[in-house]
């Protein structure tokens, strides 16, 4: 815990106010129904298509804004980890791929952002994945970030909310990315041992080693509509069984039918749902509503 108290806490940044990045008059196309959508309206609708209800992927800043009360949160700086531990190279060097990804999302960044704030008035810690950073893949930095998030939650006696959006393990870190599966499970275990709620919000996509570790261990598991969630990739399954996959296979609604998630929640109801869950779990005996027992008749 020492790095948290000594290293991270003094460096906590000021409250982040997301800046407007796009002019008001831009149009976006829904990747599902191809409807043209007015950007400002899309933003007001939390990036859910007005026409077909498709939930688009969110970057961490937008995701955190939705999760926390009044869109207010404080990001924490994550521990520095060894970059490119295997000196991995495919058609391109991993170190170059990392540099390119970091050029877009900030020096030293990786596929996970951790922040704390309040949800329904309760302190809460959230760890959200950045799918645009190498497909949200989990390597050492992400594993270390999840451990940091869990320890911050324990330190603040706050629930931990994790929002995965990840294709799975970071192949370029080889076996060390596989080892993030037990490491992330250990992170979650620290929160559970402290008696704190661990809530997972599955978003598109949550697959591979990410789904088969911390993402499926929530005390409560929510999923956004239409997200792809599963262990094996659909192409791999099709190649193995040599037939077409059933309609809606590995989508949130399919997982709900198969008993793998608690509820599928529209993005507009996510904050309110989380606030209610946290309140139910963290405030089991609200003091304001003590009703006196009826007196027995004399």
């Amino acid at each position, binding site marked *: 815990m020492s790095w948290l108290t000594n290293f991270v806490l003094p460096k906590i940044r000021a409250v982040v106010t997301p800046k407007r990045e796009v002019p008001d008059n831009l149009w976006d196309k829904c990747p599902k129904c191809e409807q043209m959508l007015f950007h400002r309206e899309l933003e007001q609708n939390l990036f859910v298509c007005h026409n077909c209800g498709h939930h688009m992927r969110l970057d961490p800043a937008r995701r955190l804004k939705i999760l926390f009360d009044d869109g207010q949160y404080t990001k924490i700086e994550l521990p520095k*980890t*060894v970059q*490119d*531990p*295997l*000196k*991995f*190279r*495919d*058609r391109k060097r991993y170190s170059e791929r990392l540099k390119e990804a970091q050029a877009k999302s900030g020096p030293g960044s990786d596929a996970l952002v951790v922040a704390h704030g309040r949800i329904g008035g309760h302190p809460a810690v959230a760890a959200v994945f950045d799918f645009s950073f190498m497909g949200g893949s989990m390597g*050492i930095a992400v*594993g270390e970030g999840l*451990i940091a998030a869990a320890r911050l939650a324990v330190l603040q006696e706050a629930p931990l909310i994790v929002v995965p959006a990840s294709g799975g*393990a970071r*192949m*370029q*870190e*080889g*076996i*060390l*990315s*596989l*080892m*993030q*599966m*037990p*490491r992330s*499970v*250990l992170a979650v*275990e620290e929160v559970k041992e402290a008696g704190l709620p661990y809530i997972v919000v599955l978003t598109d996509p949550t697959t*591979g*080693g990410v*789904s*088969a*570790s*911390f*993402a*499926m*261990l929530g005390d409560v598991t929510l999923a956004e509509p239409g997200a792809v*969630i*599963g*262990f*094996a*990739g659909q192409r*791999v*399954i099709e190649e*193995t*069984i040599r037939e077409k*996959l*059933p309609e809606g*296979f*590995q989508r949130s609604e*399919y997982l709900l039918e*198969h*008993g*793998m998630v608690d509820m599928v929640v529209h993005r507009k109801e996510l904050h309110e749902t989380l606030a209610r869950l946290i309140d139910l779990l963290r405030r089991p005996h609200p003091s304001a509503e003590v009703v006196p027992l009826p007196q027995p008749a004399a």
Partner: protein
Amino acid sequence: MRHFLDFERPIAELESKVEELRHLSNAGDLNIADEVARLETKADRLLRQTYAKLSPWQKVLVARHPERPHARDYIDALVTDWTPLAGDRCFGEDRAILGGLGRFRGRSVVVLGQEKGSDTESRVRHNFGMAKPEGYRKARRLMELADRFGLPVIAFVDTAGAYPGVEAEARGQAEAIARSIEACLRLKVPMVAAIIGEGGSGGAIAIAAANSVVMLEHAVYSVISPEGCSSILWRSAENAQEAAEALKLTAQDLLKLGVIDAVVPEPLGGAHRQRGEAIAALGDALERALQPLLGLDGAALKAHRRNKYLAMGSKGL
């Protein structure tokens, strides 16, 4: 008929020549006896040279060798009073993961083992060692049994990966693997895992998050198969050899990375050439791994596992 790998062909040719000459040889023909001795020495030297510098890709092929000892062989030779236990109590019995009670060096233990099968019929029965959720849920059930009775857990890891299929997904493959990892990490008894062939990704770590992990010299352990990695990162199936290099999946590299705790030397020419010798060596390595853990209490064993995994990955190669 012995199965030879492509890169073993020159050795195979020498050895079959030796066989032919032996058949021809009359007891008194010194020339032939000399020639046999010469060829045998040559074959032996070639075998030694080849196996001393196997490439990562060649190790992948050796690890998948059909005659390599499988979980069943290790259990038969190393575990007495073997009592298999079946079922996950939810859906079914998955024979891709063997599980049960037995004695290892006189001590009661719970044994888990991924079994690929050794002929067409048994390969189908064991689903080629690719477990479905039932297999991982059975593993978890048996680990909880071990915990209840204070029995060490020994796991033999040998799988290409968890089974990628529609029913496996429908029944929660991801959740089953996650819970199995969690069960390993929660154990208050010693757990030792042995990577005996292929340690294939999530399907392997599900029963390998152990206090101590030993690995055979030519086994492999990886986040993805070299073929899978090649098709994703190189966008072609043809770069599996390069992918095998890049992934650092050999026992020697994994020891340097601190992911495994010991490399178990294989007999000359690989475990498939001298199966009995390989099995005995692994038995000794398991005993060496288990010994120091037996004196620790439940909390210390859990802390040992936790500290080991939390420390992992702080340095590269």
